[in-house]
């Protein structure tokens, strides 16, 4: 007997919990009781496979229980005004923010408290914004493996970003490689399968120069993690022939014990292939890699904290060529219309892939038919294994032989393992033996709602005093070399960012092919996209932008503004290269610590609220997302949680790639404009971080003004009035200017006194404040009148200087004295040096 029964009948809570823990089920007592009851009613005990299937299906990783559960949110402050402030309602703001609905009442201790109950946080914030926006160009949102929006009359584009944090902490190379492998399969598994066009990657690491003595017991050193992760993404992404075109890297001590690895893939799909439907009688076909013992318990282990005892066998082993073959053949079979549905084997392996496809119908599979890497797997291991490069298809019986031939012709293994039924049951057999028999309704709908408390304490943001200096050249140099600003060229060039030939705006930009600067967003022009039906040809100049925004430093002050800033950053990056700001869709990826700690969950609630508010203001719907909680590492009694980190990825449309713009300065004599108001917002800035200062006033977002100016700027760009455009983000105005200058091999003469600012600010504040929604734009003298007209009167905009032929940057301060003077070479050198591994 290969399948065991596990006795639950009559067990007490502590015994139930022990079973959950011993088998890495990550199920709570409440959930175990529900399972116990279900089997009591059936009059039997569960098998190992049944218990494992339930645990995988109900895991945080798959079900997002915390964010879709009940959250009791409390916000406390000294006064009602302060709470109002925390929602960002100042004079620039309009009043239709959702949090208004909440009452503020002083409690006994004289503190002001507001409460809100969420029955399903995701549904009430992020999904809600998408629902309210109801954009006609959204094709498929939040229900499939990726979100799909309209590209042109024939094609949609699908985009998904996943995290692979826990595996990458244990085994950086393999964890990151299978992270990218997994998200590529999400794209292959959306609708009837999209053809991948580009990858993105975003990493958060600890300081790579960390002293070994400070490394928590059992952890790998951040530099080793960073190198392993980069190599993993490189070797998988490059071999798949998908260009990695956009990303970000963030360094913070909070990620020493728990790095974050976000992998994204964007693909193109014929619109009529964007949906799937399984019919009873369809056959279950597994294609791709064989099943082994790797990656067992991946979903459940990523739903709990890590410690030294965590089993590395939970990490999968990747083989990109197997996936490449599978992709090639799958898309051929798709174009021939040989199957009715497809999904990938991700977390939970066959159990979740087969279970999801059969959710509406019922399904019966025979595990002895599944091809194995080696003998000796127990039935539940075959069922749960997260071995990579596998996908499951629903094939109408009449196509059985035809589809087999397609896979066979390119040496891809494809095996029929069962069929979809109409009994709404999941039946798993091994030879004649029943391994599992569960009601779909219980499996997918039986998980009890969890309830968690969340709290946010509003504190006053106080300006941090910075010492006045007469010269900031050295500060700018140090900032350019600081970890969160310095060049990522070492990483970018290891990725083939131009395979497929579509990358018309590249991650590194500038005329000198050796010395380039950092682009804001990538633009993909899918002119060969043949698997999408008809080839685009050269008559169609439509393109796709990929960009992102992330800044955990702001979240240390207020997660609301971190999220709002990330959204603004992702959108403004897209606008910089020429995207239409009225057709941008967003993806959210929440990576947070232990959600059972109410202040941690509280900051997540605030971030979700900001997503809702900003999505509405920018008219940018969320189309897909993913959360990864429990990013925590335990050494004895010490628990290290990561700083709450929200990655916003944006996908946009460029109507004509010939009108795209890069960030490098072009021609001496041209005018340099700044768009957007500079405010005294040094809180969370890299400048303060460099001075080892914390706190301060975090950058806010003023979406009405910002969006209006973005739309105007976009019109100017598409009218060909803009020579170069770069956004101000980490390091503020000064860093953005330096990057534009050394990327273009041009100098710049800038006068700070002309920069529009809301209040009187010191030179340091003007140079390094990270106020959102700002752009630096180069415009030729002959286009300047037209440009200003396009931007319309009243924009927060000014000419702040000129492009110079001498390759140096000079900045005059508010008092007319020079505060920065340095050569491009010197600035570039410090920018390039830090990560030149």
């Amino acid at each position, binding site marked *: 007997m290969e399948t065991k029964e596990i006795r639950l009948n009559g067990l007490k809570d502590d015994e139930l919990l022990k079973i959950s823990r011993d088998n890495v089920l990550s199920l709570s007592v409440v959930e175990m009781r529900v399972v116990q009851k279900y089997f009591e009613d059936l009059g039997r005990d569960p098998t190992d496979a049944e218990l494992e299937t339930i645990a995988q299906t109900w895991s945080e990783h798959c079900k997002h229980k915390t964010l879709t559960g009940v959250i009791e949110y409390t916000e406390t402050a000294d006064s009602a005004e302060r709470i109002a402030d925390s929602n960002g309602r100042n004079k620039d703001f309009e009043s239709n923010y959702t949090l208004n609905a909440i009452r503020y009442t002083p409690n006994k201790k004289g503190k002001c408290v507001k409460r809100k109950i969420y029955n399903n946080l995701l549904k009430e914030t992020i999904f809600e914004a998408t629902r309210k926006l109801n954009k006609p160009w959204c094709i498929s949102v939040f229900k499939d493996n990726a979100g799909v929006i309209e590209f042109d009359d024939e094609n949609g584009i699908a985009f998904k970003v996943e995290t692979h944090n826990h595996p990458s902490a244990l085994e950086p190379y393999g964890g990151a490689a299978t992270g990218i492998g997994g998200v590529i399969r999400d794209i292959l598994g959306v609708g009837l399968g999209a053809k991948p066009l580009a990858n993105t990657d975003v990493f958060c690491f600890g300081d790579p120069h960390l002293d070994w003595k400070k490394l928590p017991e059992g952890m790998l050193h951040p530099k080793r993690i960073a190198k392993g992760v980069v190599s993993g993404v*490189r070797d998988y992404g*490059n*071999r*798949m*022939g998908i260009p990695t075109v956009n990303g970000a890297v963030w360094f913070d001590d909070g990620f020493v014990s728990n790095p974050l690895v976000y992998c994204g893939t964007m693909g193109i799909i014929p619109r009529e292939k964007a949906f799937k439907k399984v019919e009873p009688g369809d056959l279950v076909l597994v294609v791709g890699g064989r099943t082994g013992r790797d990656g067992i318990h991946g979903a459940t282990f990523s739903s709990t904290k890590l410690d030294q005892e965590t089993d590395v066998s939970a990490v999968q082993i990747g*083989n*990109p*060529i197997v996936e*490449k*073959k599978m992709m*090639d053949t799958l898309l051929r079979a798709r174009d021939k219309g040989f199957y009715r549905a497809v999904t990938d084997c991700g977390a939970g392996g066959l159990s979740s892939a087969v279970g999801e496809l059969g959710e509406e119908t019922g399904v019966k599979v025979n595990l002895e038919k599944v091809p194995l890497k080696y003998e000796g797997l127990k039935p539940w291991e075959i069922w749960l294994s997260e071995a990579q490069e596998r996908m499951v298809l629903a094939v109408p019986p009449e196509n059985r032989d035809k589809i087999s031939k397609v896979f066979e*012709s*390119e*040496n891809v293994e494809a095996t029929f393992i069962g069929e979809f039924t109409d009994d709404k049951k999941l039946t798993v057999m091994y030879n004649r033996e029943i391994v599992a028999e569960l009601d779909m309704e219980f499996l997918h709908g039986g998980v009890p709602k969890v309830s968690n408390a969340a709290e946010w304490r509003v504190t006053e943001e106080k300006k941090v005093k910075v010492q006045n200096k007469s010269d900031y050249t050295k500060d700018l140099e140090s900032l350019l070399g600081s970890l969160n600003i310095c060049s990522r060229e070492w990483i*970018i*060039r*290891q*990725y*083939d*960012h*131009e*395979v*497929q*030939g579509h*990358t*018309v705006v*590249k991650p*590194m*930009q*500038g*005329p*000198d*092919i*050796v010395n*380039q600067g950092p682009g804001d967003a990538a633009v993909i*022009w899918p*002119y*060969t996209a*043949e*698997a999408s039906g008809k*080839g685009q040809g*050269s008559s169609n100049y439509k393109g796709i932008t990929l960009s992102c925004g992330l800044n955990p430093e702001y979240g240390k002050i207020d997660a609301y503004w971190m999220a709002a800033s990330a959204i603004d950053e992702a959108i403004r990056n897209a606008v910089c290269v020429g995207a239409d700001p009225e057709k941008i869709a967003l993806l959210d990826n929440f990576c947070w610590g232990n959600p059972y700690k109410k202040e941690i969950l509280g900051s997540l609630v605030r971030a979700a609220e900001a997503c809702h508010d900003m999505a509405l203001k920018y008219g940018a719907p969320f189309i897909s997302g993913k959360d990864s909680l429990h990013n925590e590492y335990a050494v004895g009694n010490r628990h290290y949680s990561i700083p709450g980190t929200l990655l916003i990825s944006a996908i946009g449309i460029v109507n004509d*790639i*010939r009108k795209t713009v*890069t960030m490098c300065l*072009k021609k001496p004599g041209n005018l340099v404009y700044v768009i957007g108001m500079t405010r005294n917002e040094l809180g969370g800035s890299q400048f303060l971080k460099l001075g080892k200062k914390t706190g301060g006033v975090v950058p806010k977002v003023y979406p009405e003004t910002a969006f209006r100016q973005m739309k105007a700027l976009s019109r100017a760009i598409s009218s060909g009035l803009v020579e170069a455009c770069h956004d101000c983000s980490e390091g503020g105005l000064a860093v953005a200017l330096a990057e534009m200058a050394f990327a273009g091999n041009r100098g710049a003469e800038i006068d700070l006194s002309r920069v529009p600012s809301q209040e009187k600010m010191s030179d340091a504040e003007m140079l390094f404040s990270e106020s959102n929604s700002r752009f630096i734009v180069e415009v030729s003298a002959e286009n300047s009148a037209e440009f200003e007209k396009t931007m319309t009167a009243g924009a927060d905009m000014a000419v702040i200087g000129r492009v110079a032929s001498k390759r140096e940057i000079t900045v005059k301060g508010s008092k007319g004295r020079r505060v920065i003077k340095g050569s491009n070479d010197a600035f570039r050198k410090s920018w390039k040096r830090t990560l030149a591994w």
Partner: protein
Amino acid sequence: MNPRAIVLRTAGTNCDYETKKAFELAGAEADRVHVNRLISDEIDLSAYQIMAFPGGFSYGDDIASGKILANEIKYKLGDQIREFARAGKPIIGICNGFQVLVKMGILPDELEFSQTTTLTYNDSDRFEARWVNLTTSQISNFRSQIKNKANCIWTKDLPGVIQLPVAHGEGKFVTADRSVMQKLEANGQVVLRYVDAKGRPALKYPQNPNGSANSIAGICNRQGNVFGLMPHPERYVFKYQHPSRLRWDREGDFGWGLAMFKNALNFV
């Protein structure tokens, strides 16, 4: 009828779509064909006038880049391919395809058909993607000028210096011994070299992105119809693919990479 080009692919090939597109833009009819279909005789090679081995990671570049596919072709399709080359039909191997051609031994000499050169790990010891300057002029960098004897049909009439992207981890060109290199140079088979911004053969990284001997980026056979190169001409068929906007001012839509494909078409 337009000339027909076959773009050969296998597991891990990944530049096949854009290579096919490049031939189409140049005026050919092009097919992506899996190597299994040639081996099984399902496809007849003689129906094609041009053949391309595109870039990628054939069979994962296990053992060494391009090695497995090179052996597969040499031992299962060797006669057909050699016949194709001898008949003077254009063959191009790009990046992984170049690696396949040299490991199969059809470059530098299809008559010898044995491996005398290789493309090995970059001096930087890592995969790198970047644009490079290249010259097609037949100037030997280390000795006197040597006249163009090879007459490579693929690089005809290109400007003195062009830019193309490279993306590889194993692109350092070396020869088995000095005599092989001397022969290559003497025969004028070195038809593409990495150069610096001033057009001089690039000795230093990153202008010479991989440390190739004699700055070699591409070679052809003595007949001039079989051409292998590490850079990717198929990624610069439109001027919009060039990283510098200064190059976008050219007339028309096209980039210099396309000229190579057009050369092959003009030849047949």
